[in-house]
């Protein structure tokens, strides 16, 4: 180009011929796209920030709930205290009603070197141990009465206040009378901790115990079993009913005003507040059908009603997504309508149906409002043997614990939230895996 000398005239000619650069708003459009992406990023960052805040607050408060302070000491099962008159062979009630807390208290006083005659000190020693020691030692003795008269090492639950103090959740700087643990108890606690007798153990009771007024003995056992029963009932009832309803509506039902009305109603029901289902459950299942209050069965039925619309909508979407060519091919080869649906359409729609069902179940797992009215927001100590026994649910237990006065329930509330979150994550991961595994693209 450089050796070609151009006269000014040709340069002017070229400039006039070169087309004028049209303004098609390219710069503006690129800018607006960049802005839009920025908004999107900001929205995601905002969401992540709150998720992070939620998780970090729950985890930082709740991880200590998985550790439980226990005091491991040699306990002498003195015949003097348990069965003074030697009647246990004839009267089994003696072993049930013996004064086990005294057994534990004496054992701890011996380790601490407290004079058993000092009643005030003995009371404080007793305050170091959970009251549930009665049941713990009783079960031990009833299971094996030969321990009476012997000395056995037992890991005894520390009292909730000692547990909180050991975990640093009670401000020990304030005046002694303004806290639930005395200076003397703190001293003993440190003494026991130094010898290794008092230490944090993994809190299996959190998963096996029922509700309790003592934080150290309170667990999610009843709630876990109750939630499990309800999820089973929801799965067993809502999956077949929901799938049958959607197959009929999608593949067999004539398209007319009536089916349109049904469709609108189903979509509406999916958005009805869950408390309404609770009212319905109270009226129909408890008051009319006479099912027991507080039972997991009623909870399961109520949650089934609540989950059905979600499952029907998901299933119909999954059925719609199967290409019509599959149906046409099956029908063309002489399959009946029913064969077409059950041999070809349904298997192809299965991943979508299962995903919808799992998401519906996860939704039901986190529900408390409908359970309030049927009496499942309750203190239930015995783990339910059947779905007819009183039970609670995981979110209900979180709510109940959040309202407790004792400090040790704060960590348990967050601990229960962590357990619930883990279940929800597992279910949602399950849904994703199922979709990945079975999903087919056309």
């Amino acid at each position, binding site marked *: 180009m450089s050796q070609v000398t151009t006269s000014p005239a040709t340069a002017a000619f070229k400039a006039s011929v070169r087309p004028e650069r049209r303004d098609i708003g390219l710069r503006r459009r690129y800018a607006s796209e960049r802005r839009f992406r920025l908004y999107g990023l900001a929205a995601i960052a905002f969401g992540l920030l709150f998720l992070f805040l939620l998780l970090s607050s729950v985890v930082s408060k709740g991880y200590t709930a998985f550790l439980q302070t226990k005091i491991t000491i040699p306990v002498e099962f003195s015949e003097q205290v348990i069965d003074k008159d030697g009647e246990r062979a004839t009267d089994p009630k003696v072993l*049930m*009603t013996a004064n086990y807390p005294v057994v534990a208290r004496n054992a701890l006083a011996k380790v601490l070197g407290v004079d058993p005659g000092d009643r005030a000190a003995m009371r404080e020693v007793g305050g170091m141990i959970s*009251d*549930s020691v*009665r*049941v713990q030692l009783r079960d031990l003795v009833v299971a094996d009465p030969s321990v009476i008269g012997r000395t056995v090492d037992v890991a005894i639950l520390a009292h909730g206040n000692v547990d909180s103090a050991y975990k640093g959740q*009670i*401000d020990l700087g*304030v005046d002694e*009378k*303004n*806290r*639930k643990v005395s200076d003397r108890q703190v001293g003993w606690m440190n003494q026991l901790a130094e010898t290794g007798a008092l230490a944090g153990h993994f809190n299996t009771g959190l998963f096996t115990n*029922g*509700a*309790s*007024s*003592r934080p150290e003995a309170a667990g999610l056992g009843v709630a876990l079993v109750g939630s499990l029963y309800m999820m089973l009932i929801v799965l*067993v*009832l809502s*999956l*077949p*009913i929901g*799938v*049958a309803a959607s197959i009929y509506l999608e593949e067999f039902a004539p398209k007319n005003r009536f089916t349109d009305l049904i469709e609108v109603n189903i979509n509406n029901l999916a958005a009805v507040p869950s408390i309404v289902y609770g009212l319905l459950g109270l009226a129909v299942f*408890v*008051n009319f*059908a*006479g*099912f*027991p*209050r*507080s039972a997991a*069965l009623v909870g399961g*039925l109520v949650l089934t009603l609540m989950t059905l619309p979600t499952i029907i909508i998901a299933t119909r979407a999954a059925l719609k997504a199967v290409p019509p060519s599959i149906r046409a091919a099956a029908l063309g080869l002489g399959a009946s309508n029913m064969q077409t649906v*059950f041999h070809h359409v349904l298997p192809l729609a299965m991943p979508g149906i299962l995903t919808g069902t799992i998401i519906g179940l996860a939704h039901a797992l986190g529900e408390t409002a409908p359970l*309030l009215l049927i*009496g499942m*927001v*309750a*203190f*239930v*100590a*015995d783990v339910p043997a059947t*779905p*007819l*026994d*009183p039970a609670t649910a995981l979110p209900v237990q979180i709510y*109940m614990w*959040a*309202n*407790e*006065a*004792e*400090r040790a329930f704060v960590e348990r509330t967050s601990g229960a939230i962590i357990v619930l979150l883990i279940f929800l994550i597992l279910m949602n991961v399950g849904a994703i895996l199922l979709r990945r595994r079975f999903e087919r693209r056309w």
Partner: protein
Amino acid sequence: MTSLKLTVAALVASAAFAGAAAARDQIQIAGSSTVLPYAKIVAESFGETLPDFKTPVVESGGSSGGLKEFCKGVGPDTIDIANSSRPIKDSEIEACKAAGVTEIQEVKIGYDGIVFATDAGNADLALEPKDLYQALAAEVVVDGKLVANPYRKWSDVNPALPDAEIAAYIPGEKHGTREVFEEKILAHGCKDSGAQDAIKALVADEKEQASKCIAVRKDGLAVDIDGDYTETLARIDANKSGIGVFGLSFYENNADKLKVATVSGVAPSTETIASGEYPVSRPLFFYVKKAHLGVIPGLKDYVEFFTSDDMIGPDGPLAEYGLVAAPDAEREEIRKSFEAGNIM
């Protein structure tokens, strides 16, 4: 096909469950969230010390909610006991009667103190019903005239109080505690501050006089808390100069975070409440269906266990949690009255 079979199986199973629903061997209790912690302690000990019986189920849901369930009728599908932080109302007794619950036994379990507390970092606080009324009422007397509450700071009401914006977290209207607060604090303060006379001069109707006397200001300085004490505690945590209303037991469990105020010069404690010196307290009750005694296994034993000195006595676990035990003679009276089967 399999799904069809499953459905049928599920329906058959539910029908089978329905048959088993008739009998009940577990006590069912519902009601006040104030009584709930006490009822839980008793229920748990009951299940532990009397292993022949199952641990009772205790629902929460408020005094009114519990009594409503209680008055639904007689039979195993209705609850046996309603916990209440206030005496049953005549209208509720009527509703009970209409549904066939004609025999109700009242059991008083002790007293509950209501305390005013602020953040532990604050200076000591001495409150009078009059000051609280002046700070929280909708209308107060200024220069002999009844005007909308003009006070913005505690020190406006009484120079001895802190120089901070008025912020009070009081129980919402659905709580039984609210009634005690109105009756023992606002009504007294209304009288002491002279507002009662001003109201009497303005309004003729006695009912309206009373309701004007306990009306709380609605400009956001007095906040109704409809949740539990945990929520009040969180509010105090966020606003250190705020004053919250708590139950004595809740305060005692959180005494390292809260500082309690004296009312009329008396600090709340189980002793001052039992003696009646501390003015803001109320009795707690539960109501038993007499028709269920002897039908629901363990119900009679539960009531006897609850009213024994091992539970409601001054050295029992309920007192340790914060219940103010009734005097010895009254506890004896409670037990006798239940034994005799006195109905309301």
